[in-house]
């Protein structure tokens, strides 16, 4: 049994294909572990594998998949971590999920998350916080904390999550796994419960870079149901790079070296980051400082744009058609306000208020309009940087996993988690986080960001680095 769990998803798929392991047995091994979850990583676990045995020839060969609760799955609770959607059973399945199911990955369970993906610690879930498998007194990161914790703890071979401002990469970093935020438009958003439509992207959370590449290869593609999706250029192959010769890495001063109060990178994180840069150089990469002059404003722009879009995206949760409804016999206004007051958590309410304010007549130009201009500047900064560098690299999170409750009273401190991860989604570009080592026994993430649709190259570089780093996360899977 435990040997099964020790296989990476790609290894397990290969063994299923070679008929060395039975996919039903593989499913049951993970199902039992997910059902016994002590991390609160799952909000729903499948009773059994789907009736139709996955074809061994299918690309994902029966390796079960954990899915963030933000994705709609037909007939299976899809609650987005919110009381307002408690027990909601969608009548359809998100495009990305149905692509993965038909590529041969059966649905193992739905994973816990910050409510509507709003959070960096998973403490904003209506279904309770997720615990970090490296230290159960600490947060797993968020918002895809359930997916990250489940993969790190070996409760799932792999998982998908969503990233709006860092929601895949930051929990991947805090849990010691790999997380990829693809280029905006690479994966369909159809069926993904929207937080901030112009930023949301689905992506894999996996034990290693090869698994990420394999899962990602089955997620991409133009979907006629999502007007913002694009055909992924070229085939997505598994990474093979042995070294980083000819690769140039830019270290943005504004995000890494300019340590301001509060945004400062923890010494242990900085140490691991610097060590990884030396490893990269050892693999043949050149490492130089680079500039992203507007990056320090990314967080401010993000916390206007994302809440603005969220304020409209969450308006549909009104108690009229589905989900929670309070005082249905009262007048309309009362029903609306009681339903939303009871259904949404404090962070969601805070962001709806922020976003509503930012879009209000008389404030639009000063807030939302200015944020859009900053966003354009940030895209230009990256374009300029990529003229000289293949990738921009930063620590994924300024900190390792912090203690539960440590930042819940200080939203601004919580938002600073995303300091290094927010600029990329604003520019729509892909970024990956890989484990670079431990600091005081807690994992540290190393982030690489590349130009739009550079995922192939990005995964290759991450793969070469991963092999050289040799991070071992097996202790938390026991």
């Amino acid at each position: 049994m435990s040997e099964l769990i020790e296989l990476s998803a790609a290894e397990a798929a290969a063994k299923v294909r070679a008929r060395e392991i039975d996919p039903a047995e593989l499913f049951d091994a993970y199902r039992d572990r997910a059902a016994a979850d002590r991390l609160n990583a799952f909000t729903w676990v499948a009773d059994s594998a789907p009736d139709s045995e996955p074809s061994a020839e299918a690309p994902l060969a029966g390796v079960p998949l954990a899915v963030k609760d933000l994705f709609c799955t037909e007939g299976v609770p899809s609650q987005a971590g919110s009381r307002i959607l408690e027990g909601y059973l969608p009548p359809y399945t998100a495009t990305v999920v149905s692509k993965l199911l038909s590529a041969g990955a059966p649905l193992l369970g739905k994973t816990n998350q910050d409510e509507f993906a709003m959070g960096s610690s998973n403490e904003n879930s209506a279904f309770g916080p997720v615990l970090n498998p490296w230290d159960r007194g600490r947060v797993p990161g968020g918002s895809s904390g359930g997916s990250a914790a489940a993969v790190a703890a070996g409760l799932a071979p792999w998982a998908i999550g969503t990233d709006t401002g860092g929601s895949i990469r930051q929990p991947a970093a805090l849990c010691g796994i790999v997380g990829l935020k693809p280029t905006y438009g690479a994966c369909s958003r159809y069926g993904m419960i929207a937080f901030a439509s112009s930023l949301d992207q689905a992506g894999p959370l996996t034990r290693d870079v090869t698994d990420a590449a394999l899962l990602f290869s089955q997620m991409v593609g133009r979907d006629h149901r999502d007007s913002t999706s694009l055909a992924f250029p070229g085939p997505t192959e598994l990474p093979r790079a042995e070294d980083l010769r000819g690769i140039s890495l830019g270290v943005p001063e504004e995000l890494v070296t300019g340590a301001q109060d509060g945004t400062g990178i923890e010494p242990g994180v900085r140490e691991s980051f610097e060590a990884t840069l030396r490893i990269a150089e050892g693999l043949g990469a050149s490492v130089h400082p680079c500039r992203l002059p507007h990056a320090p404003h990314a967080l401010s722009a993000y916390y206007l744009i994302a809440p603005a879009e969220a304020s409209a995206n969450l308006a549909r949760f009104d108690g009229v058609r589905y989900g929670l409804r309070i005082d249905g016999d009262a007048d309309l206004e009362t029903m609306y306000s009681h339903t939303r007051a009871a259904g949404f958590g404090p962070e969601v309410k805070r962001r709806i208020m922020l976003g509503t304010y930012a879009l209000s007549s008389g404030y639009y130009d000063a807030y939302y309009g200015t944020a859009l201009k900053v966003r354009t500047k940030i895209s230009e900064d990256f374009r300029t940087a990529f003229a000289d560098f293949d990738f921009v690299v930063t620590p994924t999170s300024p900190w390792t996993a912090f203690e539960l409750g440590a930042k819940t009273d200080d939203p601004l401190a919580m938002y600073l988690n995303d300091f290094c991860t927010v600029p990329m989604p604003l520019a729509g570009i892909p970024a990956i986080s890989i484990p670079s080592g431990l600091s005081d026994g807690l994992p540290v993430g190393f982030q690489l960001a590349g130009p739009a649709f550079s995922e192939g190259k990005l995964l290759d570089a991450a793969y070469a680095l991963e092999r050289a780093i040799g991070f071992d996360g097996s202790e938390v899977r026991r």
Partner: protein
Amino acid sequence: MSGGGGERGAAGNEIAAGYEPVIGLEIHVQLKTQTKMFCGCPLSFGDPPNIHTCPVCLGLPGALPVVNARAVQYAIMIGLALDSEIAPRSLFHRKNYFYPDSPKGYQISQYDVPLCSGGRLGDVRIHRVHLEEDAAKLIHVGASGRIHGSDRSVVDFNRCGTPLVEIVTEPDLHSPEQAHEWLTLLRTTLRQLGVSDVNMAEGSLRCDANVSVRPVGATELGTKTELKNMNSFRFLEQGVHKEIERQVTLLERGAPVVQETLHFDPVSGQLTALRSKEEAHDYRYFPEPDLVPLLATEEMISVAAEQVPELPADRARRLELELGLSAGSARDLAFRRELADYFEAALAVADAGQAVAVELSKWIPQLVERIGSDADPAASRVSPAALATLVTMVTAREVSRDAAREVLTRLVAEGGDPREIVEREGLGALSADDGDGLPAIVDEAISADPDAAAKVRAGNDKAIGPLVGYVMRQTKGRADGGEIRRLILERVGQP
């Protein structure tokens, strides 16, 4: 003048003496596409509730809109028909408001960069034309059928997401009658485009009016109010009339007009305030992030242009300029496509060709009067060829106009060939060549009223009336009035 009823512009404003009403219209047109604006559900009217729905038009979590290409084509056709500029790149926005008829909590609409800008139809300038989606329908269950006093309200999402084009005019209308007439032209134009059913009773054409008044000669606009729910041409006219009256009364009393939205109740004829400017929604428009900008390519525009037929205003101009019809009858024909089509079909088969066009145009109203004003003459027993023959006979003086009217009545009742009817019924024109026919009756008239004959002989033309009347009575209208006059003058020997 190519439509839009300018000559009636100032009519009907006795209530507003000294004031000039200024009216702009906002018209919502449901497009007649196969499917909804942003999803694949079919359009419907009158079906059982909530059978044409899907995750997208129900606003289920995670669902995303996709623009209906046919709706875009129809909107471009409307833009072209209204002489608008088609924007190569336009945007969809979210218009945020909470109401159960709006399942997403926002309507997807175009805001600062609409698909079509500017333009003109008849006398009225077009401000803009844009695409959006229709709301769901609320049904208030209970005795009253209205929101007040109902037991509960339920929502039917069949209509939700139906493609809508909103047409906004400049404030170029100046009377309720002119508004009515212009809206008729717009409806005819849209019907001719084939892009909508344009049925006000079924809601596929809806009209709001912005109304203000100002002292005659003033250049600044007065404070406007917005009138909603005028779901018939008559209600539009009544509602606007009522509002002009109300505003003038206020101004006469020295009281200000307050900017507000008013609801017209056609039953009571009353206007009730829905909300004032202070209560106006802040819709918090922002660009719809689920859609990419709408790019109207040259190819899309030329494909749409090929679908635009000759439009009423152009047709009226052609009938007037090429066929010599009066402006009024050219418009009366062109603004009802079936009449113009019938007219042109008859003209095409008339032996005398275009020479009879003016006469023929006068006979279409005669036909309409006999078959009912809403009927399509093409569906009547009178073929275009039959009418053409009859009109040719009139112009050739083979039949008098009075007799021809009788023939037309028979044609409407039983169909057939007008020549045969004239023959069978002996309705052929009596003329001077008829030997002892018409000349004999004229002589009879002169001897029956020698006084009149003497006056005519002395040069008093007015005295000819009784003599003509006598002949007409005797011939039962079969003789042509002009011919009778000529004969009388000849017989009495007027110099």
